[in-house]
Every structure is written in structure tokens, then in C-alpha cells.
């Protein structure tokens, strides 16, 4: 029989688990955290100022033009929303598949989802150009007819998909946090902390009758989130696929986008987890090298899927016999934006191949570098899809180049400031590993007597 590796290292007692996981919340921040937080915060402030300038002056400060009406904002929107998908995959899909290793990474991955969706959600709202009219996206009774939203438009589907996704993943995350907030409340030594976590825990006491309902709800939310997460990136891909532009109008888009989203999301999970392990060494017993290895295997698998999609797109473009379709793909690989295409291919398809070697899968520096490459590659994938398809469509008289400006850079880089500010605050305010979910898996891979079986 193959022996399972323990999911939690060291012979932890239940109390050790609570102590270890609550420690970052209950102690003063380290210098490293403070330095990272201040840099992220500075970047976030820069982002806010950039957005202020962008709103007050206009969307023309970005490189968007005719024919390239969709630029950095849409590219970065798809990038961040894709990152969110790995969190839901870990928290919901792996839960349904009874993958016990997910317990120690689920909380942080879900936090990543929530913050990535928050970061992403801003872009389409700002990209409307007049964000003060964004409430027009919602079907509300009005005095212009009433004139309703166009439910046949993929952009409106996206409004519903992204807002549902944001709501449900936040609720799912919060439900998971309630018992852990109760733990923090009961451990609190001072009044303010007791009050804050008391409110957040909603008075949870851990009665077995409550746990029975709780576990049922958790299962249901996992079951609801699974089709939801697949639908979200499917609908994001519809934004492109439902148009008739060569390079966008393909049926492969939904599965291709979902695979890419999971790929990029796991890239970001690895980046964040290596940092968390560095910053909070006691978490190394919970987020072990085994966990990282499993995630690297997923990165390699989805990387291959994405590579297959690139090849399939090329083949179908040729096989379709449609000259515009053929040209769009030849232009991607050989045209003026060929550099971005080849950055995408080398980062997404070539760099994860190193994970065929076990030593690489288990090496923190190697996986950190690969995860950064994956993040870069997946941003470029969305750039390739959006910009290279738009810049040369049917009529050569309608061709152009994207006018990348300093504002594009500010928006792209600044969004990382927002994401990391939220994420770093989360690490110090919320338990970063699920306390109540880790305790039942303490015995996995060890010989311990207990009420568990299986």
C-alpha cells in the first residue's frame, strides 16, 4: 500500500494548531511585513492617484485608440479575474473531490480570489469611461422608457457573472472564517480584540447541532461555486468569442479560458505561498513541500492544456480555410506583436516543463521563479488575445498599433499595489490557515487513535 504523507508536519496537538495559526494575528508585525506593507501601500496610493487622473481627464490617457478599443484595462481585468479562479478551484472543486490537502491552503487561496476579483472588478467599471454612470449596467426601473439593459449582450452577462462570483466567493470565504473568528474571540486577551472578533464570529459556539448544518451548507456552497467558477470565465471568454473578429470568434474559448485561469491562479497561489512560508515560518508545518508539489503538478498539467489550446487554435485557423482567420494567427506569431506571442508561449508552455523533474517541483526557488513566469505569461496571453486580434482585422486601411502610455503602466503596476495591500492586511487580521478544517486532518498519514475513520 502507498503510504500517505502527513498533511501537517510535527506532532501538533490541537492547542498547537490554534496557537500557531493565531500567532500572526496576535503579535506585532515583523519588519519584513512592515516593509512589504508600506511598499504595497505606496503603490496603492499611486494607483488611486492614477485612477483619479484617469477619471478626471478621460480614458484617452490610456493607449486605446481606433482600432484598438480594448487595451490594458480589459487585459488586466481578465488577468485578475483568472487569478481568482484557482482559489475557488481549491476551496470548492477540490473539496467536492475530497482532496484533504486543500485544507491548509484553501483559506489563503480564497482570500486571493476575493482580492483578485475586487482588483479585477474595478477595470470594466473604469473602462466605461464615465464611471459615475456605472449604475446603468443594472436593470433598474427608470424614466427613459423604461429603457432596460440589453440581455443579449455578453458584456451584460459579464456584469451578472462577475458580481455573482464576487458575492458568492466572499460569502463562502466568510462562512469558512466564522468558527475561526470564534477561536480568536475566545483567545482574545484585550477588550477591543474580543469585541471585533466577537462581532465577526456572530456568536458562533461550536455546538454539534450547529456543526451539522454548517457542514451541510459548506458542501452546498462548494457545489454551487463549482459551476459558478466555470461559468464566470466562460462568460468572460464570451466577451470575445461572441463577436465576429478573427482571433476572437472561436468555440475553443470557454475551455481554453478556464484552463488558463486555473493555470494563472495556481501560479499566483505558489507566488503567495512561498512568501507566506517565508514571512511566517510556523506555517511551513501546515503548507508543506508536499502541498507545493501537488500545486506544481496542477501548474504543469494546466500549462500543457493551455499549450494544446495554442496549437489547436493555430491548426484550426489553417484548417478553416478562412483567409482572415489564417492571417490573424500568422500575424500573432510573425507580425509586429510577435514578441508578445513568444513571451506568452515561452512563459506558459516552456517554463512549467521543468516540473517534470521531482527536484524542481520540490524546490522553493525554482517554483517561485516559474510562478512569476506564469504570471507574466498569462498577462501576455490576454494581451495577445485582445490587442493583436484588434490591431489588424479585415481591412488593412483599418489597421493600427496600440499606443502604450505611462498611464497603462501605472494602471497595470498599481493594481498589484491594491492586491498586495489587501492581501498583507488579511495575513495579519484573519487566520491564514483554516483552524477548524486543519484539526480533523491532523492524523492523516500518522497512526493516531481517534474517532476518525477514513
Amino acid at each position, binding site marked *: 500500500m502507498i503510504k500517505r504523507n502527513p498533511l501537517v508536519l510535527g506532532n501538533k496537538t490541537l492547542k498547537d494548531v490554534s496557537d500557531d495559526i493565531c500567532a500572526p494575528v496576535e503579535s506585532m508585525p515583523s519588519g519584513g511585513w512592515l516593509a512589504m506593507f508600506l511598499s504595497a501601500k505606496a503603490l496603492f496610493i499611486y494607483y488611486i492617484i492614477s485612477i483619479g487622473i484617469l477619471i478626471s481627464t478621460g480614458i484617452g490617457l490610456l493607449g486605446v485608440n481606433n482600432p484598438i478599443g480594448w487595451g490594458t484595462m480589459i487585459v488586466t481585468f481578465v488577468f485578475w479575474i483568472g487569478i481568482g479562479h484557482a482559489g475557488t478551484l481549491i476551496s470548492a472543486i477540490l473539496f467536492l473531490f475530497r482532496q484533504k490537502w486543500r485544507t491548509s491552503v484553501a483559506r489563503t487561496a480564497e482570500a486571493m480570489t476575493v482580492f483578485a476579483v475586487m482588483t479585477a472588478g474595478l477595470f470594466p467599471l473604469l473602462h466605461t469611461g464615465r464611471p459615475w454612470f456605472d449604475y446603468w449596467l443594472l436593470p433598474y426601473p427608470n424614466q427613459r422608457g423604461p429603457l432596460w439593459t440589453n440581455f443579449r449582450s455578453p458584456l451584460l*452577462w459579464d456584469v451578472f457573472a462577475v458580481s455573482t462570483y464576487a458575492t*458568492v466567493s466572499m460569502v463562502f470565504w466568510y462562512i469558512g472564517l466564522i468558527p475561526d473568528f470564534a477561536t480568536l474571540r475566545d483567545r482574545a486577551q484585550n477588550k477591543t480584540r474580543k469585541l471585533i472578533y466577537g462581532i465577526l464570529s456572530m456568536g458562533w459556539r*461550536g455546538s454539534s447541532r450547529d456543526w451539522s448544518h454548517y457542514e451541510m451548507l459548506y458542501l452546498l456552497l462548494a457545489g454551487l461555486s463549482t459551476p459558478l467558477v466555470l461559468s464566470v470565465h466562460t462568460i468572460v471568454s464570451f466577451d470575445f468569442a461572441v463577436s465576429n473578429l478573427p482571433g476572437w470568434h472561436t468555440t475553443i474559448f470557454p475551455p481554453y479560458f478556464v484552463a488558463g485561469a486555473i493555470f494563472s491562479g495556481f501560479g499566483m497561489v505558489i507566488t503567495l505561498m512561498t512568501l507566506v512560508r517565508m514571512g511566517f515560518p510556523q506555517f511551513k508545518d501546515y503548507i508543506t513541500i508536499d502541498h507545493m508539489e501537488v500545486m506544481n503538478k496542477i501548474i504543469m498539467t494546466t500549462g500543457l492544456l493551455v499549450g494544446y489550446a495554442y496549437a489547436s487554435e493555430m491548426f484550426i485557423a489553417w484548417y478553416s480555410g478562412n483567409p482572415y482567420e489564417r492571417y490573424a494567427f500568422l500575424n500573432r506569431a510573425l507580425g509586429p506583436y510577435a514578441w508578445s506571442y513568444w513571451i506568452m508561449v515561452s512563459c506558459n508552455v516552456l517554463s512549467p516543463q521543468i516540473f517534470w523533474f521531482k527536484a524542481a517541483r520540490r524546490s522553493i526557488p525554482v517554483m517561485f521563479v516559474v510562478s512569476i513566469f506564469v504570471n507574466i505569461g498569462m498577462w501576455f496571453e490576454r494581451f495577445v488575445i485582445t490587442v493583436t486580434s484588434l490591431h489588424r482585422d479585415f481591412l488593412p486601411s483599418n489597421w493600427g498599433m496600440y499606443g502604450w502610455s505611462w498611464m497603462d503602466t501605472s494602471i497595470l503596476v498599481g493594481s498589484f499595489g491594491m492586491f498586495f495591500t489587501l492581501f498583507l492586511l488579511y495575513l495579519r487580521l484573519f487566520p491564514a490557515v483554516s483552524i477548524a478544517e486543519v484539526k*480533523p486532518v491532523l492524523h492523516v498519514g500518522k497512526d493516531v487513535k481517534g474517532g476518525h475513520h477514513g
Partner: protein
Amino acid sequence: MAKYQSGIAGIWLEEDKILEAARKCQSLGFKKFDTITPYPVHGMEEAMEIKRSNIPYVTFVAGLMGCLSGLLLTWWTSAVSWPINVGGKPMFSLPAFIPVIFELTILFAALLSVAALFYLCGLPKINPPLIDPDLTSHKFALFIPKGEVGYDENKITELFKQLGAAEVKKVAEY
């Protein structure tokens, strides 16, 4: 809230012992007792004969409601209230409405299921009395309220001690 009752609680340090204690209390015919654990203990539902949660029914009905409201919203706005010809498509173009209907189904099902949990567990509770602050960390408790059938303080204390309780205490309010 006046729902809190006094009673007697035993505290255990091991998961298997609380399971056994729960089984014992169930077999003695106690009905209103409760166990308090830091995490969902596997096998506790069988030990205490807790019925399967009713939340799935709420989820199903809520999902159906979401689905129907999505259908009504898209149909009424696009085909009745202000019909507009978009690209020659039918006024009631169902395939195009499916994404919105689907998202509303999920949204209603998820939010109302959460509301059902809050209702069934009586959350939020404002500053509820606790038996022991370690019960959300590493201890397990079994609480028998005063209103329990055959409630006898001395007998229960004896029973808890036999079952290996680390501590037995009178609880004024839980």
C-alpha cells in the same frame, strides 16, 4: 434572549472520549443535551442521532426562485416592457438569456442557504454565554440542561467522571 438555560457540563480533552460520552448520553435517553467541539467531529451526528440538515431543501427552492426570477426579468424587460430589435433576434431570445438566468439561480441559492444556516443556528448571537473559552480551541464539552428528562446533578456528575471527563462544572447559563 431568554433562551439560555442552566445545567451541567463535562469537559473532555480527547475526541474519542467525547464521542463515547455522546453515545452514552444518547443511549440513556437524554434528548436535549448538546456537545460543543472546536471542529466538526466525525461520527458525532450518528452518536447524537442528529437528523440530516434541511438546508438542501432551502437551496433547491431558492435556486428555483432565482431561475424563475431570471426568466421573468429577461423576458419581461426584453419582450414586454420595452421590446427592442437587436440584430434581428427574437424578442424572447432564450439562449441569450441563459447566462443571466444561471447566475441568478446560483446567487439566490447561495445567499438564501446562508440565510437558512443563520436561522437554524440562531446566528447572530450577541455575546452568548460560554462554558469554557478553550472549547473553540482544544477542548470538547457535553452540556446537559436542567430541563432534560431524568436530570439529576449528582448522577450526571458521576456519569461524566466515569466517562473520563477532565472537568465537570455547573453552568449557570448556556
